[in-house]
C-alpha cells in the first residue's frame, strides 16, 4: 500500500449558463438575504457589466442596496475597511462580487469584517483565524482565469506596511459562483488570452504537481480540454458566447482543481515577476508554463504525457508513441502560445514583454524561492534551478 492520501473540498454551488444571472434573486432569498451590496471595479461598471446583474435582481423585486465600484487592481486593507463601513451604514445583509481576482478577494475580506466584526482586516490574516460561517456571498466572475470564485484564499495588501496579507479559510468561499456568458463577452483579446492561459496553468500544474489527486485530476483534464478547444475560437470570434461559456467554466473547473491540489513553480516565478516587474499574472503564466514543464519533465513524464489527450485530442494522442507524449504536450502548449502571439502579441519570452531587464532575473529567482507554490513543485527547486529556468525564458 502506498502512502497516498488526499483531501478534496468544494462546497461552492456553481450556477452556469444562459440567463444564469437571473438566478441571483432566488439564490439570495434562499440564503435568507434581501439587502445585497455589490463590490466591483470601475472597469466592470464602464463595460456595462453591472446592468444585466442589476436588471436581473430588480425584475424579481430584489433591490441592490449599495454598489461599491472603486476596488483598485490590488485590493488593500483601507478599501476593505471603507466598504465594510458602507455595508454597515446601509444595513446590507449580503455581498455580490462582480469582477476579477481583486474584486473577489476584496469582497471575501469585506465579508470577514462584516461577519466577524472589527475594522482591521489584518487581525484575521493567516490560517484558521475565522471560526464561523460568514454572510451570504455570491460571486459573478467577469474574467475567465483566476478561479477565485472557488478558492478559499484571499490576498489583501496592507498599504501602511506594504506587505501582502494572506487569508485562508474555507469560510471565505462564496455560497455560489454565477457563471454567465454575458459577463465575459466583451473581454478584450489580450485579457481573454492571458486569463485563459492562467486557467490552463492552474489545470496543468494541478495535474502535475505534488498534491495531485483523482478528484482534482478530473477537473483539471476537463478544463484543459475546454481551453484547448475553445480559446482560439473565442480569439477569432469574440462574440461566440458558447465558447465564452466554455472558457468561463474551464476557469472555474481549473480553480476547483488547483485549490485542492495546489500549483508549482510556474506560479512561484509568476508571483515574483508580477511583484517585481508589474506584469499581469496571466501573461506570466503563459510565458513560464512550457519552460517549467521542460524543467520538471523527467519527474512528470507520465502525467504530462496523459495531458496530450486533452490538449490535442484522441487522433494526435493515439498517433504519438507513449514515450513522446510528454514532449508533444509541451509542443502543443508552445503552439497555442504562438497562435496567441499572432493574434494579440501575448509575449512568449521575458524579452518580448519589454518590461523585464536581464539583471532582474536573479531578484526574481530569489523571490520565487520564498513563494509558497514552490513547495508543491514536483521537483525540488534550488535557486540555481530557478535561475536556469529564467534564463531559458529570457529569449
Amino acid at each position, binding site marked *: 500500500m502506498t*502512502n497516498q492520501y*488526499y483531501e478534496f473540498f468544494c462546497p461552492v454551488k456553481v450556477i452556469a449558463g444562459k440567463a444564469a444571472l437571473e438566478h441571483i434573486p432566488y439564490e439570495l432569498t434562499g440564503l435568507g438575504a434581501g439587502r445585497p451590496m455589490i463590490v466591483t471595479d470601475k472597469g466592470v461598471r464602464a463595460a456595462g457589466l453591472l446592468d444585466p446583474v442589476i436588471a436581473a435582481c430588480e425584475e424579481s423585486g430584489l433591490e441592490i442596496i449599495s454598489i461599491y465600484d472603486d476596488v483598485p487592481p490590488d485590493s488593500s486593507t483601507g478599501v476593505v475597511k471603507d466598504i465594510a463601513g458602507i455595508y454597515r451604514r446601509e444595513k446590507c445583509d449580503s455581498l455580490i462580487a462582480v469582477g476579477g481576482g481583486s474584486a473577489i478577494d476584496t469582497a471575501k475580506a469585506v465579508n470577514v469584517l462584516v461577519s466577524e466584526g472589527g475594522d482591521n482586516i489584518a487581525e484575521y490574516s493567516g490560517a484558521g483565524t475565522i471560526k464561523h460561517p460568514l454572510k451570504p456571498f455570491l460571486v459573478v466572475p467577469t474574467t475567465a482565469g483566476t478561479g477565485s470564485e472557488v478558492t478559499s484564499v484571499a490576498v489583501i495588501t496592507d498599504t501602511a506596511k506594504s506587505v501582502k496579507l494572506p487569508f485562508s479559510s474555507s469560510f471565505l468561499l462564496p455560497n455560489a459562483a454565477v457563471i454567465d456568458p454575458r459577463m465575459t463577452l466583451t473581454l478584450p483579446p489580450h485579457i481573454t488570452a492571458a486569463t485563459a492561459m492562467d486557467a490552463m496553468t492552474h489545470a496543468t500544474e494541478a495535474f502535475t504537481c505534488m498534491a495531485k489527486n483523482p478528484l482534482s485530476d478530473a477537473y483539471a483534464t476537463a478544463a484543459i480540454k475546454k481551453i484547448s478547444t475553445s480559446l482560439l475560437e473565442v480569439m477569432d470570434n469574440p462574440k461566440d458566447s458558447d465558447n465564452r461559456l466554455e472558457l468561463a467554466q474551464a476557469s472555474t473547473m481549473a480553480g476547483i482543481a488547483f485549490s485542492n491540489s495546489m500549483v508549482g513553480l510556474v506560479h512561484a516565478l509568476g508571483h515574483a515577476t508580477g511583484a517585481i516587474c508589474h506584469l499581469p499574472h496571466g501573461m506570466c503564466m503563459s510565458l513560464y508554463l512550457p519552460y517549467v514543464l521542460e524543467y520538471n519533465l523527467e519527474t512528470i513524464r507520465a502525467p504530462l504525457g496523459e495531458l496530450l489527450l486533452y490538449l490535442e485530442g484522441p487522433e494526435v494522442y493515439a498517433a504519438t508513441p507513449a514515450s513522446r507524449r510528454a514532449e508533444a504536450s509541451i509542443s502543443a502548449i508552445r503552439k497555442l502560445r504562438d497562435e496567441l502571439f499572432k493574434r494579440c502579441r501575448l509575449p512568449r519570452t521575458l524579452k518580448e514583454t519589454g518590461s523585464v531587464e536581464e539583471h532582474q532575473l536573479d531578484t526574481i529567482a530569489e523571490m520565487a*524561492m520564498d513563494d509558497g507554490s514552490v513547495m508543491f513543485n514536483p521537483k525540488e527547486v534550488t535557486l540555481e534551478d530557478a535561475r536556469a529556468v529564467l534564463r531559458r525564458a529570457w529569449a
Partner: protein
Amino acid sequence: MLAKRIQPMAFQARRLYVELMFQVMGRALQAISEVDASARREARGLPEGFLFEMMVMPDGSRLIVEHVGDGRFHYHGNSAPRPVDLSIRFKHIAHAFLVMSFQEKTSVAFANDRMLVDGDIGYAVRMTRILNRLESFILPRVVAERAVKEYPSNLRLPEKLLSAARIYLKVASNFIETVRA
C-alpha cells in the same frame, strides 16, 4: 483481549518514537546549521531570533529551534522562551510518525494535508527546504537498513522500543558520520 492490551502499548511506542525523533531533529537542525553551508545559506534568510516550532496536535511532542543569526540554529528542547514565529503542526501523531520514520517527506506531508502552517508561508517554505536537506543527510542509510518500513501493528512494546532506540542511535551516529565526512 490481547489486542486490546497490545494496542495502547503500540501507540505508546509510536509516541515515544516521535518524541525521540523530535529531539534528534532538533539537535540535528542545530548541528546541520553549524556544518552544512547550504543549510546555513537557507537559514540566513530567516530573521534573527526567529522561533520555529514543530508539534503534534492537539498538545503532543514539540521541538523548538531558534535562528540565533548567521544561519545558525539553537535547539530549545520542547519549550519556547516566547511566542513562536512559525509553527508547523501535524494533525495527528500518526502523521508525525510517517514523517519522523521517513516514510513520508516533509514536503509530501504538506502536499498531503498532513499538517498545518501557522506563520509566514515564505519562512515555512524555507524551513521545509532545510528539513529536506536534513532528511537527505539522514535518510539513505536508514532506508537501507529498512529499519522502519510500515508501522507493524503486531509488534510488541519491548521489541518496538528497542528498535526505536536502535534507530535513534543509528540516526544520530549516521548523522554525525555523514556530516563529518
